[in-house]
């Protein structure tokens, strides 16, 4: 029996802590959701920092759409090779291939259209991702004979998560942490002084492609839980909150990760709370994004207040420089 049934927001956490210390298997659905969401939001928050700093957010938006085509192709291949029933719960190698392929192809096509076709950068992003997304939808509709699968990939469904999703989310989180720590210096250099990075021999293209691949892996790890579009909130909101509150990169990364983890904990607890108290089975992904935007709005208000306080402060004119 699921010990979380009937818990509200606070007893959810006390139950969780109790379960943590008793350390008893197996995992219950709420715990699986918790682990997957925390893993996903940590990956997103870490890679999102670089995404927002390098002004690639809209490329990530494109990627989050085109990943559907990658997933659809991997799904077809998987079904062809192994002949299993229609579900997007694919093993890691297929997802990995889909992610890498989509990341590279999306970036390549966008650059090609922009540089060779002479289309504005934003417009070329727009054309590429809508086309590939439409192709993905058609492919799914024509082969899976189940239009709902497409909708599920867009909306995400936390309740359908199983232990297999933990086995996808956690390795990708580990990979994110590993790569971003290993290449921290290179990323830092090429983001803030791209000319110097080029002079030292770090190709900006290589880093962009690498980052895009990492993002598409992250999106792949997230699409079953929060859907391909709401992942964008996880990718952009925590880093922007960090950016609004601090000027130091280290603090920004830490804040971003903290916000991502806390909000995903809260969203699972809140979703359980709403179910217990009001009988409302709301989409946990939607709740997660709503909480994130609330946090973002609060940060904005805080900034506004801080700025006005600074403007009114009598010491304003005396500040050096």
């Amino acid at each position, binding site marked *: 029996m699921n010990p979380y049934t009937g818990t509200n927001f606070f007893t959810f956490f006390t139950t969780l802590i109790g379960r943590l210390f008793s350390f008893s298997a197996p995992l219950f659905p709420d715990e699986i959701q918790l682990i997957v969401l925390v893993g996903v939001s940590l990956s997103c928050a870490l890679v999102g920092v670089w995404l*927002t700093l390098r*002004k*690639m*957010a*809209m490329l990530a*938006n494109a990627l989050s*759409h085109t990943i559907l085509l990658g997933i659809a192709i991997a799904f077809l291949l998987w079904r062809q090779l192994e002949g299993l029933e229609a579900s997007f719960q694919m093993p890691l190698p297929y997802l990995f291939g889909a992610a890498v392929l989509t990341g590279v192809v999306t970036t390549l096509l966008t650059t090609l259209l922009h540089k*060779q*076709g*002479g*289309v*504005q950068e*934003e*417009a070329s*992003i*727009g*054309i590429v991702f*809508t*086309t590939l*997304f*439409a*192709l993905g*939808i*058609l492919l799914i*509709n*024509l082969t899976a*004979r189940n*239009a709902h699968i497409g*909708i599920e990939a*867009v*909306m*995400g469904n936390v309740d359908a998560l199983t232990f297999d999703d933990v086995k996808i989310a956690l390795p990708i989180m580990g990979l994110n942490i590993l790569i971003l720590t290993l290449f921290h210096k290179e990323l830092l250099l090429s983001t803030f002084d791209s000319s110097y990075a080029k002079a030292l021999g770090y190709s900006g293209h290589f880093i962009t492609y690498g980052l895009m691949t990492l993002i598409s892996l992250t999106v792949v790890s997230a699409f079953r839980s929060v*859907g391909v*579009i*709401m992942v*964008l*909130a996880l*990718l*952009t*909101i925590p*880093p*922007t909150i960090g*950016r*609004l509150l601090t000027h130091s990169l280290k603090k920004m990364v830490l804040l971003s990760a903290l916000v991502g983890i806390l909000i995903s904990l809260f969203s699972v607890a809140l979703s359980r709370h709403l179910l217990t108290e009001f009988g*409302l*089975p*709301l*989409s946990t*992904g*939607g*709740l*997660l*994004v*709503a909480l*994130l*935007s609330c946090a*973002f709005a609060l940060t*904005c208000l805080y*900034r*506004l207040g801080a700025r006005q306080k600074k403007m009114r402060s009598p010491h304003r004119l005396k500040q050096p420089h």
Partner: protein
Amino acid sequence: MFDILSYFTDPVLRGPTIGSILMCVTSSIMGVIVYLQKRALVGETLSHAAYPGVIVGLLCSVSLFHFEEANPLLALFGGAITGSLALYLLTVLTKRFRIKSDSALCIVLASFFGIGILLISMVQLTHGGLYKQAEGYLFGQAATMGDIHITLYFVLALIVALAVTLLYKELQLALFDANYAKILAIPSFSSIIFVLIVTSIVVGIRSVGVILMSAMLIAPAVSARQFVHKLSHLFWLSPLFGALSALLGNVFSYEITKALSQDRSGGKIVLPTGPTIVLVASSLCLLSLLFAPKRGLVSRLWRIASFRMTCAKENLLKYLWRHKSGSSEESLYTFLAINPLVLRPLLLYTRLQGWIEYKNGHYHLSKDGEAKAARIVRLHRLWEVYLVDYVGLGARSVHSSAEEMEHILTPELEYELTELLKDPMWDPHQQPIPPKGFLR
């Protein structure tokens, strides 16, 4: 039996076809403006942001006003409200909080969409019937449009078209000289554009869907831009592309679905209209990016290739002109910096044209070829004289420039140069300049 007219007369097909055409015309008119403002992805954010509004509109029409069915007008209205709110938030985030515009776009998009998904999960519980409809707005549901939608969209399309026509001059100013427009203080003009953009997007999401809507703003405008470079022409051509993609999208979706269901009975395979329209629009866009007469990639590459070919041909003739005793094929390969793959067909071509002859293993110029080569040498040396006499360069430094200009100078320019330089006999390197109309 395929009959294109039936798409406009058949009571079942009429709704989706005409509805989508009207919607695509509306969005592609506004797409021109958005594209020229270089804010192509605003449409993406706004269409996603309209989604929660649409759901609230649907909910209101059922629970608040107790309509039998969900009212499309209320859904549009709700979408317009959240869309405008998103647009306002975008400006606040970028202006007041100095968040980079791409991050701001993403944040607003994902937040509104997430709230939409939250709402839809609520609707699923309380109004099961509405859930299907609300899902339909995700990928569009052209197939269920009826005559009421045609009337509604016709009115909205008319409003947008009228507004653009009446405000054409102001639009032109705001698009190409924003600062001047600001100085003239065209009152609340940008807000009118905003309203129009939101309107066109909200109209569009019914048939193409929230997620793919931005394609219908961008793709027709980009395709049209390949062919024309006048704003008024853009405003004509872009809706044309939009309407064409809507029509073809509907035709393909219907015909292929029909063909597939005949093929395999039982399995229900539907080619959804929205994504098909988007695919047609982006294929049209791709085709025009490749094959548009002036700006297309293929025509640009063709121009480059043919210019290179002309240069190679003229260099070959010049080389043979300098080596009057003829030249073997090997020495041509060695001394001309031309790719062998190009040189071989070039030799064949010039021989067929009768410009060069092949005798005893050596290539020679024919009479015609000599005249041609002489003209090139003449242009080369005339340009050198011009550079030395009029531009004041040293005689040593003019050769490389002349090496390029000889391929570019037209007969008119040659005439002008001859007049200006009084038909000189010698170039700065004391080489004779072949006279005009040279024939030996």
